[in-house]
């Protein structure tokens, strides 16, 4: 019985292998940052449509997990929302792995308020104090005498992770903060509430809300790319050595105008925005 099962399985494997070679299919594994996940997912769908037969599997887990997997040869591409750390480079060298960085997009987070709010800009420190629940009234920071309603994204979203990274550092968001499930819900809530402050990925900004300056810098694709705007960072894909085959084609696709259009659509800043 067992031998029959074995035969069937090996037969199936053979079929899969030959079929794979027939279509020149190569399976690519992508792992890592949840911030980069939505871009990768959307790009992947477009890429697979143009390249039938290509096998790409994608999972999240966070930047650290992705890089760890790259070092363990468990993934072809490691998505990361931060640069690779010194220790990770050292560890990679000891394992004979050469991480190569590819910047695929910029992430810029914008604090927003209701258009009726008088406040024009805040410092990162003020934002942090507001989100920690230490500043509770708009008059403390040059606005009207109104209670501040803190609106945040759910703690498991990539945007929350970015906000946490840029603004909160190691501090916790006050439990009184409203946690909303999407960028769209944030815009709706802020557009209708002059007490509220929220934040979103740059691509989701629209006229119904007012973007705040951060440390006196206006958020725009230009200031984000020039690294003047403080709440922006590069998003990376790391590969082991220069990418080959499908991996290379996928990264190329993501960097191409078509790929960057997807980046913009997902709420991030394209690398060639100039």
């Amino acid at each position, binding site marked *: 019985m067992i031998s029959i099962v074995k035969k069937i399985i090996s037969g199936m494997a053979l079929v899969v292998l030959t079929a794979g070679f027939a279509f020149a299919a190569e399976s690519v594994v992508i792992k890592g940052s949840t911030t980069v996940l939505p871009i990768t997912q959307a790009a992947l769908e477009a890429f697979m449509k143009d390249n039938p037969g290509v096998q790409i599997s994608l999972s999240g887990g966070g930047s650290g997990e992705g890089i760890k997997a790259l070092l363990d040869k468990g993934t072809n591409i490691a998505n990361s929302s931060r640069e690779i750390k010194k220790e990770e480079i050292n560890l990679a060298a000891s394992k004979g792995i050469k991480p190569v960085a590819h910047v695929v997009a910029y992430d810029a987070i914008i604090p927003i308020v209701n258009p009726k709010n008088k406040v024009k800009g805040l410092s990162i420190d003020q934002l942090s104090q507001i989100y920690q629940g230490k500043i509770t009234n708009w008059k403390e920071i040059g606005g009207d005498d109104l209670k501040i309603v803190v609106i945040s994204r759910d703690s498991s979203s990539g945007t929350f992770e970015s906000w946490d990274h840029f603004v909160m550092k190691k501090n916790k968001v006050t439990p009184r903060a409203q*946690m909303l499930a999407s960028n769209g819900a944030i815009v709706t809530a802020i557009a209708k509430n002059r007490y*509220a402050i929220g934040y979103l990925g740059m691509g989701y900004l629209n006229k119904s809300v007012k973007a705040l300056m951060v440390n006196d810098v206006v958020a725009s694709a230009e200031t984000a790319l020039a690294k003047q705007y403080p709440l922006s960072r590069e998003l990376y894909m790391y590969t082991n050595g220069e990418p080959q085959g499908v991996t290379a084609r996928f990264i190329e696709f993501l960097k191409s105008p078509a790929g960057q259009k997807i980046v913009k659509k997902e709420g991030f800043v394209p690398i060639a925005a100039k």
Partner: protein
Amino acid sequence: MNRHTKEKFIKYILFLIALVSVIVLGLIVFSLFREGLPIFKKIGLADFLLGLEWYPTSEPPLFGILPLIVGSLIVTLISTIIAVPLGVLSAIYIAEIAPAVLKEIFKSIIELLAGLPSVVLGFFGMIVVAPWLQETFDLPTGLNIINASAILAIMAIPTISSISEDALYAVPREFKEASYALGATKFETIIRVILPSALSGVSTAVILGMSRAIGETMVVLMVAGGAAAIPESLFDSVRPMTASIAAEMGEAPYRSAHYSALFATGIVLFFLALVFNMIADYVSNKYKQVGSATL
């Protein structure tokens, strides 16, 4: 096949079919516990149930779900307070007072209300009720307990109303006739005779309405505001358990502490629903009508 074996055969087939739902429930409960219990290797039961801080993704993570439990209970309680009078009184009107034409109209409208998808009601709460609440009462936010409870009440009314109505219909005609014969008015008959005889059915209706409210997810996800803190007023935002599970499960890494904490939250919800059902059972047994009034 002779008649006897055929009977037996049919009996076992039906038994197996009945068994399916039991097995499905058993498997769901099993996987709920299998995925949820590992969290208690990391934190104690008391810290989980009574902890005040829910920071599942910070370093180190904190998994206190008391604010979530309070959130679920408070919106359920307030929505019950709103829905019970509306549901029961409309059932009385439909069952006892309304003329035949109106009866049909009201009944079908209430049934239509039951058919509204919860996401539609949630959207209504978010786009219409929240700004209105906020402006009318000059509140910091319209996404709060009152808003969520009002929307949940709208969802619970059809359940409460239609089950209560059935209970009222089931009150035997002789009771009413005896009451009128003794010279009671219609109002006295309804309040003193019909409603008490239908009490067990009405209570079951109320508790089923409450279970509907506590298990509802979409509405609270959209209009309760999602703040994981114990509320200080009815205009504060809360984060009911269902909303937390729905919002976070998609992003929680498989079998991480966060993942099993969410399943454990599901276990707590499961027990709450169980308690509601047991109360419903107890009430309907305690006030069981005997004789011809048995439901």
